């Protein structure tokens, strides 16, 4: 019975939350292979692409699929594995290992730049250097890393010594040495092995570096199987029977999975046991404020076990990247001071948050544990972590006392918002008010791209931002100047936090007296919708965005009713709706009135499926990224003679001397294009991470 026929132009794309279904898309597989090709070469890339298409395979299988020799395959696999791009599983007693691709990490390659930038801003340049080398060499034994740094430091000091003697010799612009003098002046970024040790300690404490252990490279499915077997053997030798046993089994599974996951944090735990480096460092800072040289604190850090093997923990990196994205979101909405406060809050809150999205298997029973040890930040804690140079009075408006409903503003929400079944419902409250201040939104969208998040907010820029927060009831214009009463710092902080609480996006939840928390899932949903709105506006204009919002708040709307609701003329409206439909933002459903399904009599219902549009956006972003890489490849092919010349060892470092002018121009034009293409990819990645990972 075809009573209900949904007219779908585009096939629905599943945006499953559990990592696997997302990776079914072909463009993503292509993108991963291209990224590996870009960074690690053709051989690993071919093998990786094959693993993605064929799934779990052994070396002989791969050799057959790719028609390469097993020797080549082995080399390629070794490279891939070194860079954490593989899972493998060896059955006891079997000859061959089964390899599986790790598309998460392959995709994360594009985020390298962002991660490095993030590490630099929050931990300083030396930490960035360490992370970079760690990313470069993949999983590394600590002793190897230390040895490498040692060699480099020695080399640098030696060169510095010779450099002092004859300056003009090294100044010769010769190849790579050409820019050596500039570095020698600054000295090596990491000054000593003790310094390196301290950096690694700090990064381990921040969970950005994790320890590799025996089960790291088992694929998630294998891990699950292993744990399952263990649990079955240990607790349910007779099998799981009955509902109660099933629940118990699930709990045990989750516990086992968590235990296994916690292994990668062993180093951090050890550090904490040895007397929390952070605390001691703080103590030292207080004691020796005058001592500018950081040598003292380095000695305090325990020497790490040189046999440990470490690697980058992308999951935690993503948490930090998400924080930055949210701060930017808050900047767009409320201005810099409030966003700065929010940034501090997020940093404190997510210090122990291991990943952005909870694992559906391991974290099922976590909810109960969460209430015992919830993620909560108190006002005092935030206050302690704010920089004193930040003027908190900026960005808050003032209103008459009677205009504020104190009880509503200070309302305490002890529980996270209940899960709503329909996404459309969740938006109803927000959208009603959001329609009114479209202007406000637009201005923030424009500034979105060039808004640089500055952790240290200086007074000059902040003055402007107060105007942004018009939605908040504290914002009164002009009254601030008249008001003689000045708030003290904690009150100001509270005001900022309350502003964040009141937002339609629910940046913060006031979960107890002077206690604050963030519910990430609904907040991220709001962020995703904002992204979607931006895209709709760019593609279909303001009218289109308005129509989409109407549909979202009203649910399904009949074709004839829509013009009345939208206050638009019918032909215009129809054209707009068709445009939106072909772009995949809205869909139409045909509901016949009787069994004959007469077209003239049936209803046509427009509706807006947010999830599906987001899925489309995600798929489009992958495709566009692939396209960027392909364009780059074509460019490389076109400029291949120039590129070959610049790669020559005698040309490197003195291109201007050795190359023709036209070559030089072509080369610089190529570099510019390359930069732009990568910039485009980074921006798309911003979107992808909001849609998929955060």
């Amino acid at each position, binding site marked *: 019975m075809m009573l209900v026929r949904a007219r779908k132009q585009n096939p629905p794309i599943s945006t499953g939350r559990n990592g696997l279904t997302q990776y079914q898309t072909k463009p993503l597989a292509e993108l991963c292979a291209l990224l590996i090709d870009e960074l*690690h*070469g*053709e*051989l*690993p890339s071919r093998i990786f692409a094959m693993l993605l*298409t064929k799934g779990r395979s052994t*070396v002989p299988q791969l050799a057959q699929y790719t028609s390469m020799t097993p*020797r080549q395959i*082995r*080399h*390629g696999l*070794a*490279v891939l*594995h*070194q860079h954490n791009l593989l899972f*493998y599983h060896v059955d006891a007693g079997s000859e061959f*290992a089964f390899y599986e691709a790790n598309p998460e990490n392959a995709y994360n390659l594009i985020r*390298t*730049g962002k991660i490095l*930038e993030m590490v630099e801003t929050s931990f300083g340049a030396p930490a960035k250097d360490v992370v*970079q*080398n760690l990313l470069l*060499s993949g999983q*590394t034994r600590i002793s*190897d890393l230390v*040895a*490498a740094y040692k060699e*480099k430091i020695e080399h640098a000091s030696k060169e510095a010594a010779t450099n002092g003697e004859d300056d003009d010799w090294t100044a010769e612009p*010769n*190849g790579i*040495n*050409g820019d*050596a003098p*500039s*570095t020698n002046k600054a000295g090596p970024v990491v000054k000593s092995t003790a310094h390196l040790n301290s950096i690694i300690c700090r990064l381990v404490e921040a969970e950005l570096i994790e320890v590799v252990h*025996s089960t790291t490279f088992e694929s998630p499915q294998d891990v699950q199987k292993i744990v399952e077997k263990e649990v079955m053997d240990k607790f349910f030798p007779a099998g799981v029977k009955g509902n109660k046993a099933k629940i118990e089994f699930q709990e045990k599974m989750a516990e086992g999975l968590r235990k296994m996951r916690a292994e990668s944090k062993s180093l951090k735990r050890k550090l904490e046991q040895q007397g929390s480096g952070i605390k001691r460092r703080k103590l030292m800072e207080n004691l020796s404020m005058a001592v500018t040289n950081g040598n003292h604190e380095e000695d305090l850090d325990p020497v790490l076990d040189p046999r440990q*093997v470490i690697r980058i923990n992308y999951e935690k990196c993503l948490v930090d990247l998400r924080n930055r994205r949210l701060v930017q979101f808050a900047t767009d909405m409320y201005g810099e001071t409030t966003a700065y406060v929010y940034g501090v809050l997020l940093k404190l809150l997510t210090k122990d948050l291991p990943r952005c999205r909870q694992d559906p298997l391991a974290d099922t029973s976590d909810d109960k544990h969460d209430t015992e040890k919830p993620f909560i930040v108190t006002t005092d804690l935030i206050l302690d972590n704010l920089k004193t140079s930040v003027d908190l009075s900026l960005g808050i408006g003032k209103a008459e006392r009677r205009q504020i409903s104190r009880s509503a503003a200070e309302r305490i929400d002890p529980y996270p918002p209940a899960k709503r079944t329909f996404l459309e419902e969740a938006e109803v409250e927000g959208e009603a008010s959001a329609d009114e201040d479209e202007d406000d939104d637009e201005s923030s969208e424009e500034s979105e791209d060039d808004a*640089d998040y500055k952790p240290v907010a200086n007074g000059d820029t902040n003055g402007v931002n107060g105007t942004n927060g018009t939605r908040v009831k504290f914002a009164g214009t002009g009254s601030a100047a008249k008001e003689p009463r000045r708030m003290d710092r904690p009150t100001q902080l509270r005001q900022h936090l309350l502003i964040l609480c009141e937002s339609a996006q629910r940046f913060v939840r006031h979960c107890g007296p002077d206690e604050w928390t963030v519910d990430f899932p609904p907040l991220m949903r709001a962020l995703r919708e904002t992204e979607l709105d931006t895209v709709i506006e760019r593609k279909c204009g303001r009218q289109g965005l308005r129509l989409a919002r109407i549909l979202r708040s009203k649910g399904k709307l009949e074709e004839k009713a829509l013009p009345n609701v939208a206050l638009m003329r019918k032909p215009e409206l129809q054209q707009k709706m068709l445009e939106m439909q072909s772009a995949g933002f809205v869909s139409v459903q045909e509901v016949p009135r009787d069994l004959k399904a007469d*077209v*003239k009599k049936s209803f046509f219902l427009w509706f807006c499926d947010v999830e599906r549009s987001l899925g489309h956006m995600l798929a489009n972003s992958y495709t566009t990224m692939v396209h960027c890489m392909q364009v780059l*490849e074509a460019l490389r*092919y076109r400029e291949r003679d120039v590129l070959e010349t*610049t790669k*020559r*060892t005698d*040309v*490197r*470092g003195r291109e201007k*001397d*050795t190359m*023709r*002018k036209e070559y030089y121009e072509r080369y*610089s034009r190529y570099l*510019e294009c390359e930069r*732009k293409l*990568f*910039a*485009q990819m*980074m*921006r798309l990645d911003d979107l992808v991470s909001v849609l998929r990972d955060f």
Partner: protein
Amino acid sequence: MSGRGGRGGRGRGGPMVNGRRAVAQNSVPWATDTEILLDGKPSELFPPYDVPKPPPLTRKEDKVISYFLLFREQCQDGPLYTQARSRLSQTTTSSTNPSASTATATTSRAYGQDQINQRYGQVSKATVDAFTAVPTYSQRFTRAPRALPDLASRPFAKEFFPPELHATLDGEDEVAASRPGKRRRLAGGGKTLGLSNITSYKTAEELFLYDGLLPDQQQQQQQQIGQPNGRKQEGELDKALQLMSTLEKRGEGEDDAGFLSGEDDEDWVRGGNGEDDEDGVAEEDDQYEDESGDDYNAEAYFDGNQDDDDFDDGGDDGGDYF
């Protein structure tokens, strides 16, 4: 799909024989509206199109991309990068029609794994392009592409690798058992993890544009570049050729370099190169330049080789040159 509009009776009125024409005559806009101006021109082949332009990079984005590019540069410099391209269209200059081969390289469809595999492994002795394959001196400066990663040059945490890869990690996974990685093991005696030397590299672009030169050198170059432009350059070409001929008559004296380029007295090589660049000596000279530059560049060659050793750390490529 077709149901909705299809039955609305636009074409149903009137007899079909000549009624259609009658309807058409009355209903077309220019029949009813006499004021209308018909634009009989064909539609434009390339109508103006508003190309969406992304906003320029912010400082933060710029930094992010610089870091990424630096990272890529370091990756490609590292021992695990396999440079060799075995796809035909990328490496060899296909002499007949390059556009077609780019198309095959990037966009052609492949049906099935066999066809995908056929794209690779195309670069071999049989596919060498005879026009570019003649060995030239400058080829010595190009780094030999590495077909397999140089695993022996660095240490690995072997316990986390599957046992079947252990031999490969030691660099003992050779084709013939007769030469079990003799050279490699010598090279990797110490086996330290080499940190990339390009850490100090800002970006390729910055390095190139500002060249790491001293400001006064840059000024000189700007002057040089500023002078010969467009037509002027062509006039100067003749002049340069004349100069060359006079030079050859004179024989190679010390003063010649100064006579030629006017500023770089101490270094013939550089003067010669600079002259070659800025004045744009005719193309046919190019090949001979390479040959004649042989003697001078020998020095540069050794220098270059040192560099190479430096940043390869294993220095295994050094062996190939000799």
